[in-house]
């Protein structure tokens, strides 16, 4: 199974938890106070509450519902209703492999992270979700172009692999990378990274450009090639 990008590192500060999807699987990704990242099935072993609604306490994630706490080793550490009890070590969350690389959080459900060779020194721009298929997004992308700060016009024809769309010179210096996280036939999330040639206004232009792509991908109204 392919390793999926599930979010940008800078969107998961320490002591925070976020929801994500890998295929059909709902997961909770969280970062402890000391910075350890874990990715778990988004179901509390107690009564099934989404763990992404919980809160981080130091090196544990506490479930919002009855406050059971789970440590970075996935084991239950504390049950508030029975404070004196040492929870049995069999109570644990369903954990997946999570790796942080290139400013992106990658999750593999089957334990073998295969992170695509990306390029160093890209900065996170944003994540954006689409209510349409990956094909719709790719075809909308193919119809739009994006102008760099130096006037160069990027288009999607530059390079395309299964999960990553690299705009500009694929050999060594991409100006923009779009990583696709496919959760279902009707839902895709894209994570965008840019090189350091973009000014703040340029990064904002990228953000608006992907909103344009989304409008077109979701409505699928044919339009003339447009540029932002």
């Amino acid at each position, binding site marked *: 199974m392919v390793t999926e990008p599930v979010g940008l590192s800078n*969107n998961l500060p320490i002591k925070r938890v976020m929801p994500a999807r890998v295929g059909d699987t709902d997961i909770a990704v969280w970062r402890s106070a000391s910075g350890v990242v874990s990715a778990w099935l988004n179901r509390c072993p107690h009564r099934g509450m989404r763990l992404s609604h919980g*809160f981080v306490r130091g090196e544990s994630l506490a479930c919002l519902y009855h406050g059971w706490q789970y440590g970075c080793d996935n084991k239950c550490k504390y049950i508030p209703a029975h404070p004196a009890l040492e929870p049995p070590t069999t109570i644990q969350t369903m954990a997946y492999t999570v790796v942080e690389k290139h400013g992106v959080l990658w999750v593999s459900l089957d334990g073998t992270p295969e992170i695509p060779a990306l390029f160093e020194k890209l900065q996170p721009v944003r994540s954006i979700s689409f209510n349409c298929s990956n094909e719709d997004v790719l075809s909308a992308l193919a119809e739009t172009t994006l102008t760099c700060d130096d006037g160069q016009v990027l288009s999607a024809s530059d390079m395309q692999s299964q999960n990553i769309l690299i705009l500009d010179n694929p050999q060594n210096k991409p100006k923009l990378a779009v990583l696709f996280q496919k959760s279902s036939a009707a839902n895709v999330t894209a994570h965008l990274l840019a090189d350091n040639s973009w000014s*703040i206004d340029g990064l904002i232009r990228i953000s608006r450009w992907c909103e344009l792509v989304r409008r077109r991908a979701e409505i699928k109204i044919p339009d003339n090639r447009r540029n932002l």
Partner: protein
Amino acid sequence: MSFKLYNYVLSGNCYKVRLFAGVLGINYDSIAVDFHPGQEHKSDDLMQLNPAGTLPIMIADDLVLTETSAMLIWMASKFDSDNTWWPATDAAKTAAIVQWLGFSSDLTSTIGEARLHTMLNRDVKIEKALADGIVALRRIEAQLTEQGLRGGAWLVGESPTIADIACFPYVALAPDAGLEHDDYPAIRNWLYAIRSLSGFVTMPGIHEVHELRNEGD
């Protein structure tokens, strides 16, 4: 007491005022109104006070205010001595804030309506309310994303303003209407920042940031 508030605990609009009062650290008189099931906001007495038949209603000095935007501006002008929540002399900022105050009523008419449907079984065109609710969430997400790229965490400028207070309740309560925050990382960070404000108060569906409390309590 600084003002009197006709109040309903589950109302996102009443919560704007309660939240801002908490953040400013001011006390007020709260008069509980039986909005559901009593429909007390449509009673003769309250309709005399507010012919629009909505909550909240604020009695502020000699004024009767029935629009939350007006209430937030009045509260900021009167009680925020630093003038950061409503920087009255900054034309660009106040204009941008009023844009978001206007937008906040779109949140009431989309997410707020969908929530009345889900929670109180109100007769609402639910599919349209939800679809428009997603459009509204995406607008906030886009603005917060751009602010983040500029290095900011708030809807307008570099510090929280009444624009954030006005938009917060129905964005935070969207899951009540079935609109989860999963697809909106910038919104999640902003909700967290607002919940971390000193003086923050909760309402059903919006809890405090537990990790800011001491371990073990």
